[in-house]
């Protein structure tokens, strides 16, 4: 049973436009969420996180939105750049829990120049 789902395996966006990547979760105990970016042949790198006490967190071009009632989070990238082309994973955990993160299956973003 996939507790964290990224239903779009791929997404293409024009340079300069907004990229919106979505993530849904089923476990209402999750209270901390992260987004990672992964280039081919490299390990994932942390992008941005949000705890359940917030509904928005912003860092430069990246904003994460959390809708707890819908068990949904999204990552907005504005403006999108060709260097943003990568696979994006969302992950969820329980603060103070068993240290485990549950990862989604990833969305491959392609930003077209």
């Amino acid at each position, binding site marked *: 049973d996939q507790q964290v789902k990224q239903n779009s395996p791929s997404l293409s966006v024009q340079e300069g436009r907004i990229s919106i990547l979505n993530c849904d979760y089923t476990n209402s105990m999750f209270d901390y969420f992260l987004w990672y970016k992964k280039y081919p042949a490299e390990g994932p790198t942390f992008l941005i996180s949000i705890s359940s006490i917030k509904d928005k967190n912003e860092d430069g071009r990246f904003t994460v939105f959390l809708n707890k009632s819908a068990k949904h989070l999204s990552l907005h990238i504005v403006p999108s750049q060709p260097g943003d082309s990568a696979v994006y*994973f969302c992950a969820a955990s329980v603060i103070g829990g068993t240290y485990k993160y549950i990862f989604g299956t990833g969305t491959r973003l392609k930003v077209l120049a």
Partner: protein
Amino acid sequence: DVKVTQSSRYLVKRTGEKVFLECVQDMDHENMFWYRQDPGLGLRLIYFSYDVKMKEKGDIPEGYSVSREKKERFSLILESASTNQTSMYLCASSPGQGSGEQYFGPGTRLTVT
């Protein structure tokens, strides 16, 4: 600057061989993790460790074991490699309990023939 290193970037082994994958982190992190990444399945947790000599099974521990004799080093062992263990293996570390980002190594692409 956190650094997580993995002993090999690419590895080719034969079916039935015993395989050791090593991971070292230099930030004195308590928690260390082993994942495998497969297309369409995202990152799946194999084992994790929250202290020296402590280990817990993740979601897919079958066919694997781990060892953590020193805080900075976490080894993944494939007791008898099989072709379905061909995958990208990613090691990660994190401080604290359940929250906070995980820092990933570059990954080991293992092929079992």
